[in-house]
Each structure stands twice: as C-alpha cells, then as structure tokens.
C-alpha cells in the first residue's frame, strides 16, 4: 500500500517543484509520402500527418488528467524532408514547410520538427535545396522546426555545410528581423544528431525508425534543486546520490506516461529522453541547481565540474527507470529559457566561451543564445565548427542554436516570449575566422571513429 508521505511527495514535486512531462513527441515516418510532383507531395504529407496524429493532443490531455501530471507539449517529428522531397522536382521546399505547418496546426500540436537534412559528409542536391529554402520557410511558417546535421564522429565535419549554415542563420535572422530573429530559434545545427530526439527544435524521425514512435522527454530541474537543498554542505558524493535518486523518480513518471501514450495512440513506444529541461519560470532552472551545489553564479569557476556531476548523475538515475533511453538525455543549458542562465549572462558571469566548455560535459550545445546582429556569417560558421569539433571528438551530440538579432548589440536584450524566454545579447569574440571558413572542404573523421 502507498504511504502518505509518498503521495504527498509526488504531489509536492508536481505542485511546488514544477515536475512535468515536457513533451510527448509522435514520430511519423513520411517515407511513403514521396511523390514525383510538389503538390502531390505536399498533399500526401498533409494527409499523413493529419490522419496519423489526429488523436495526439486529446490523448495527451487525457493522460494529464488521469495522473494529475502536466504534459506541457504534444509535438510531432517527421522523416527529414530532404529525403522525402528528393524526387518531387521542387526547386524550393518552402511549400513543404507550409504543408507541415498547416497539418500541425490542424491537429493542434505546438511544434513539428523534421524540416531537416543530414549532410555530415557531403551535401546532396536535395540537402542544398532544403538549406536554401530554410530562411523563407522559417519566416513563412510558425511552428515548423528545422535541423541540419553537419558532422559526426564517423564522418568528420562537412565544412562546406558549416559555411552554408553560417549564411543561413544570418539570412533567417534578417527575414524574421521584425520579430527579433525568431526564425533562428527554430533552427538547430547538429553534430552527431540523434534520430529519436523528442525535444525541439532538433526533433526529427530518423530513417532507421519504424512507421511511428512515441518518444517522451521528462523534465524537473525544480525537483532536483529542491532535493539538493536537503544535503547542503555535504560532500559531492551525497549530491550525486541525491540527483540519481531524484532522476530515477522523475523518469519513472516519464516511463509511465510514455507507455500509456503508446497504448492509447496504438503506436510503439520509442524512447525516454532523460533530460533536465529548464523553463524561464522561477524554480525551473538548471543554473540554479549548479548554484545550489555551491557556486556563487553559474558560469564562474567550478561550473563545468558541477555540470559534469549533474549530467552524469541524471543519466545514472534515469537509466534504470526507463525501458529504452535515447534522445539527447542530459542537462540542457539553453540561455534564454533558464532564469538562472539569464541572470548569469546579464551579470557577466556567464560567457559564450564558458558555455562552450560546459557543452563538453552536458547534453547538446550552445542553445538559445542571442548574439549581436552584426556578427558575420563566417563567425557564426566558426562557432558552429568549434561546437561540432567538440561533438565529433567526444562522440556526443552537440548543436548550435544562436540568434544574431538584427539591430541589437551587447547591452541590449531580447524577448522571444513563452518558453523561448528572454536574454541579454552576449558578447562574441571579435577576432575573425573568415579565411578558415572560406577554405571549405571536410575535416576528416577522427581516429576514434575507427572502432571496428
């Protein structure tokens, strides 16, 4: 029989500490939608999404009511469009993004991911078309998310694609300038992209997946912070143990929701993403967990070590609680979406360079960082290359989602609204890498790719 304290603890986590299931993401294969004309392709994609995902939001809301735990997002990921649209004859994939946008609105989800390309070795013609379509597609649609994979541990880094993505980020910012470059918040450049990620903007339904998959992302930075308040001053072994125990509990809820969602949707359960995903709300910050460990401010000396401990303990605790673990699985450090990160950036304690170091030991990469609108395409490409190098050498996923806000400089701030949050414009090192980026070509796969 359940004990009173267990029931109260769960409801305190949900009520006071903002425990939630961050997302149920339904992965849908669009491999069967390939058509030899643009209009036929767009119609097939619209029909597939609207029929397959018609119950997703209702099922999510029912599960939320049954268990009394918030399920913040219901979302869709699809097969990378550069593959699906390849034989359509379209010279621009903007109509495909618009079809995705219409379909996703029709079923009521708040984001759809997969307007994506994989180009870690070379750019195929379809990848070029997709990348060229990106600025307009992201400006013309509201809830379509995009990702481009430009490197991997196995393939090295495609520096031609990196250069192209530097320009694409800039152009996307310009086309959505009147909304503080919001288009860039929907665009992620990956190294070692994963095929079962439920989180946006980087979710897509990988080519090795089946027809459908229910992937669930858990969350709960506030729960971890609260648990650590009980072990103040104790050795870090105790901190790690506490994080593990808490992550286990959080993940069990994710597993329950994933199993139930898969059953009700009649789709196979995919993975649980063991992530600590912050929101701008007070009490939902990863930075505040690091500060609870004893740092004056996130971004100061000690931050990388504290984050390494947190990230590893979250995985260890969550691993045993989930049937299948996948996605990005780790602590997220999006600057504009985390109240503690925003404070740290505004106070000067957190720099772009420190964030880069932090990405060596946690999930993903440079995320939701607003930079001066005057930052050049080459500098953005060089930032992408640095981040990809970390991913390639360490065999982990890294990503860049930076937002060069037109007309804004260091000292200004920007507000994206909702869960995308707000943040100060961060300083970018002014020295140039133009000649490095102009070389193009490929950075060869590292020695550690030769594992066979």
């Amino acid at each position, binding site marked *: *029989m*359940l*004990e*009173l304290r*267990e*029931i*109260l*603890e*769960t*409801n305190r986590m949900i009520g006071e500490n903002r425990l939630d299931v961050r997302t149920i993401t339904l992965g849908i294969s669009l491999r069967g939608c390939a058509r030899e004309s643009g209009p036929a392709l767009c119609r097939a994609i619209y029909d597939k999404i609207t029929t397959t995902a018609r119950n997703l939001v209702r099922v999510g809301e029912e599960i939320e*009511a*049954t*268990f*009394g*735990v918030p399920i913040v997002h219901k979302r869709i990921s699809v097969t990378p469009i550069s593959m699906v649209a390849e034989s359509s004859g379209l010279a621009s994939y903007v109509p495909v993004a618009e079809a995705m946008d219409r379909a996703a609105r029709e079923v009521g989800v708040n984001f759809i991911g997969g307007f994506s390309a994989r180009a870690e070795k070379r750019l195929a013609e379809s990848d070029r078309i997709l990348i060229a379509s990106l600025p307009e597609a992201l400006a013309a649609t509201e809830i379509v998310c995009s990702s481009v994979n430009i490197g991997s541990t196995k393939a090295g880094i495609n520096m031609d694609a990196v250069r192209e993505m530097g320009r694409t980020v800039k152009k996307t910012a310009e086309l959505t300038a009147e909304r503080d470059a919001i288009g860039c918040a929907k665009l992620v450049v990956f190294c070692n992209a994963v095929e079962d990620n439920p989180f946006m903007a980087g979710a897509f339904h990988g080519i090795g997946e089946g027809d459908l998959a229910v992937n669930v992302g858990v969350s709960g930075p506030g729960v971890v912070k609260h648990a650590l308040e009980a072990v103040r001053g104790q050795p870090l072994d105790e901190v790690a143990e506490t994080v593990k125990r808490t992550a286990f*509990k959080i993940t*069990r*809820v994710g*597993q*329950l929701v994933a199993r139930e969602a898969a059953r009700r949707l009649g789709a196979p359960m995919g993975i649980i993403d063991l992530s600590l995903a912050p929101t701008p709300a007070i009490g939902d910050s990863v930075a505040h967990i690091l500060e609870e460990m004893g740092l004056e401010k996130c971004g100061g000396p000690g931050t990388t070590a504290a984050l390494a401990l947190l990230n590893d303990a979250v995985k260890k605790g969550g691993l045993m609680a989930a049937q299948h673990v996948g996605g990005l699985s780790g602590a997220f450090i999006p600057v504009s979406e985390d109240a503690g990160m925003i404070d740290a950036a505004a106070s000067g304690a957190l720099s772009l360079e420190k964030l880069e170091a932090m990405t060596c030991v946690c999930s993903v990469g440079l995320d939701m960082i607003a930079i001066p609108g005057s930052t050049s395409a080459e500098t953005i490409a060089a930032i992408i290359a640095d981040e990809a190098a970390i991913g390639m050498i360490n065999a982990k996923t890294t990503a860049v989602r930076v937002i060069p806000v037109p007309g804004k400089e260091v000292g200004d701030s920007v507000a994206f609204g909702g869960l995308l949050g707000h943040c100060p414009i961060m300083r970018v090192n002014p020295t140039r890498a133009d000649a490095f980026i102009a070389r193009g070509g490929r950075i060869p796969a590292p020695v550690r790719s030769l594992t066979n």
Partner: protein
Amino acid sequence: MKIVVTIIGQDRVGIVARAAALLAERRVNILDINQNIVHGFFNMVLIAEMAEAGGGLRGVQEAFREMGTEMGLDIKVQHEDIFLAMHKV
C-alpha cells in the same frame, strides 16, 4: 483501478462526509483514509477502488472539482499508478 484523492484546505464541518457520500453515490469503494489537521489546515489522502464504479475517472474528477469550488478546497483525483511508478520498484 485504484484512485488517490488528496484534499487540502481550511478545516470546516462536513468535508469527510461530503467526500464519502460523493464516492458512495458513484459506487467507489474507500480502501484507506489518512486525515489530520495541521495549523487549522485540513489534509486528507484517500485511496479508493473504482472496480464497481459508474461514470469513470472523469466523472469522479468532475464531481470533486465542484465540491472543491463550493467548499474552497484544493482537491486532486489521480490514478494510483503515478505514485506506484515513482515509489514502488
């Protein structure tokens, strides 16, 4: 299926009676009740069996929502699996 009903709020006459009557009307069988008063605040956790119940979980939740609004109480009605998942391996 078992449900967990959690009621928190200012203490007053008739909270337990109303909750018990509401469940009895819907043939929901009470298995366990834990109740106390802390600093004038009423706390109750009740576990009940829905096997013979009519109207389903939504119906019970709706009835408790009305009771909570009328009596100024915070009431949650949840499937027990969320607690079992978190606390029982």
